[in-house]
């Protein structure tokens, strides 16, 4: 039996940030990693993915982007390199190739069972990521045979898809980016659009992430929003990190030739049925973006840098056809693929403690899980809006490690 004060599960940016914060407080710990550093980014992402945040924003405790392109967006190889470099500076005590198969309490200790022995510890930090399993809705089971169902974990690039039309389900950053690239591969694409978050890449001459950071939007905490559950479940904002810094919204999709339909509600006898609420979900997103831009403009008005910003602008409302199709006969209309861009969920199947709610979500208060000694890190809107992004990890890691430190009796 091996022992440590704290076991950190996962050596992505969050686990490494936790390790750094633990080391600063001289708390003995190990990181257990099923693969190698940045494993999910290495093995579970598609080819063209880039971060939604600009490089200058990529920072972790004691480490920041130092390259020559602060306004660019990291590709996956660049991000993996960034996290590898961080791992070297952190000198984390790490066991790679070690999968955790069970975490449970045994009297006063927590037992972490792995493919390479069992660890006993008093604290565990769950840094296993928020995107372990594609969250495919139940309606997928009703898809007719002959249609290939592809998830965002299986998807690499358009060339793996059969010829024929593609239905992309979901209007998150992922859904729009993949609809766009599949459309450009020459396949006809239809995009099923439910609730979504619309954001311009660049506003008044600056990256929208710069504005949200400057105006304090990214620092909004769980008490600053009406409904934290809803805020945590929002799809990722419709952004793409590309050299052109273009706006990737539903109007751009329409202009490119992608067809928009409502949320996929049901499939009956091979016919996909879409909600008639497309217009309203677009209105909701347009109005919400308008409110954010109002907030930004108000902040800009009061800022000392006011005269360096381009003038305020407002964007065209999302164009919706008079009568978007409510049904598509998938086989009859030559659809070959359905791509499920319907989000992800964490995998806690190995976590044998009563810490999940009836929907399978981890119950935690700002990362402090409702089981003594258990903490989470790297979850969407865990403590603040920026928790969803890499740079949000710094504050969160310090917060939970302080809490853990007190719990272990090593505070002050």
């Amino acid at each position, binding site marked *: 039996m091996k022992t440590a004060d704290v076991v950190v599960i996962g050596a992505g940016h969050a686990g490494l940030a936790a390790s750094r914060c633990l080391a600063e407080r001289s708390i003995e710990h190990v990181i257990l990693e099923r693969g190698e550093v940045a494993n999910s980014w290495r093995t579970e992402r598609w080819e063209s993915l880039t971060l939604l945040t600009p490089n200058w924003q990529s920072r972790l405790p004691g480490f920041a982007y130092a390259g020559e392109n602060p306004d660019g967006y990291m590709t996956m190889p660049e991000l993996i390199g960034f996290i590898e470099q961080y791992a070297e500076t952190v000198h984390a005590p790490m066991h790679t190739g070690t999968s955790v198969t069970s975490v449970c309490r045994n009297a006063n200790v927590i037992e972490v069972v792995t493919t390479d022995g069992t660890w006993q510890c008093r604290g565990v930090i769950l840094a296993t990521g928020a995107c372990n399993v594609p969250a495919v809705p139940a309606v997928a089971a009703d898809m007719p045979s002959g249609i290939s169902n592809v998830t965002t974990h299986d998807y690499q690039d358009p060339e793996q898809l059969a010829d024929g039309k593609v239905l992309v389900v979901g209007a998150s950053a992922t859904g729009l980016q993949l609809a766009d690239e599949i459309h450009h591969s020459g396949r006809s694409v239809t995009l099923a659009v439910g*609730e979504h978050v619309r954001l311009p890449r660049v506003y008044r001459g600056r990256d929208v992430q710069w504005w949200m950071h400057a105006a304090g939007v990214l620092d909004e905490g769980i008490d600053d929003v009406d409904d934290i559950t809803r805020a945590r479940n929002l799809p990722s904002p419709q952004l793409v990190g590309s050299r052109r810094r273009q706006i990737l919204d539903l109007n751009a999709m329409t202009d490119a030739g992608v067809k928009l339909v*409502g949320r996929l*509600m*049901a499939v*009956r006898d091979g016919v996909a*049925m879409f*909600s*008639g*609420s497309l217009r*309203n*979900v677009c*209105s*909701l997103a347009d*109005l919400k973006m*308008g*409110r954010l831009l109002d907030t930004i403009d108000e902040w800009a008005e009061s800022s000392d840098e006011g005269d360096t910003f381009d003038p305020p602008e407002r964007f065209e409302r999302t164009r919706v056809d008079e*009568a978007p199709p409510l049904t598509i006969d998938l086989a009859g209309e030559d659809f070959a693929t359905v791509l499920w861009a319907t989000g992800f969920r964490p995998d806690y199947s190995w976590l044998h403690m009563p810490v999940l709610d*009836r929907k399978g979500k981890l119950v935690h208060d700002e990362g402090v899980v409702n089981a003594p000694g258990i903490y989470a890190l790297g979850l969407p809107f865990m403590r603040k809006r920026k928790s969803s992004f890499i740079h949000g990890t710094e504050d969160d890691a310090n917060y939970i490690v302080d809490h853990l430190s007190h719990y272990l009796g090593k505070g002050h």
Partner: protein
Amino acid sequence: MSEEASSVNNGVNVAALLEAREALTAMPEAAQFKWRATCDWQDGTHSSSKVEGFFGLGEEQTHVKSFSFDSDHPEVFASEDKGATPVEFVLVGLAGCLTAGIAAVAQNRDIQLKSVKATLEAPMDIQGILGIDSDVRNGFDGVSVRYEIDADASREDIEALVAQSQKRSAVFDIITNPTNVTVEVK
């Protein structure tokens, strides 16, 4: 929430609604409701329907009184027009649901409503119900709802009320999304 200090009064007890939301989050089985109606054929296309009881919060409930509705077809359909056409009840349901939602959301957002008027229109090609053309569906081609709202709020805030009301509306959902319907004979 600031409704305690607020002078806004749209006649919606938002505090009670928010309390109910919290209670039902903890006790989801109490959130299981069943809505009911009965219908008695009168003569021709005329029927009388009644709503009285429903199930919710774990037990049988009743309205403060029973409500009756006559439905019929208009004279241009060679009927006697003793009540609204059933499809018009659908519009009435949608309007009532969306408007109730607007009042509740406005109260929650501290917006005083002065007047809320909705005009609904639903085009329909009756070649469908008459079986003239099998490519034409029986139901509406679409539904349009036009609101005229006078309230102490900006145009954007009023649009946001209307959008949020659609998002939370049962009848909007029933009309825009497929529903399994089982009709049996006893």
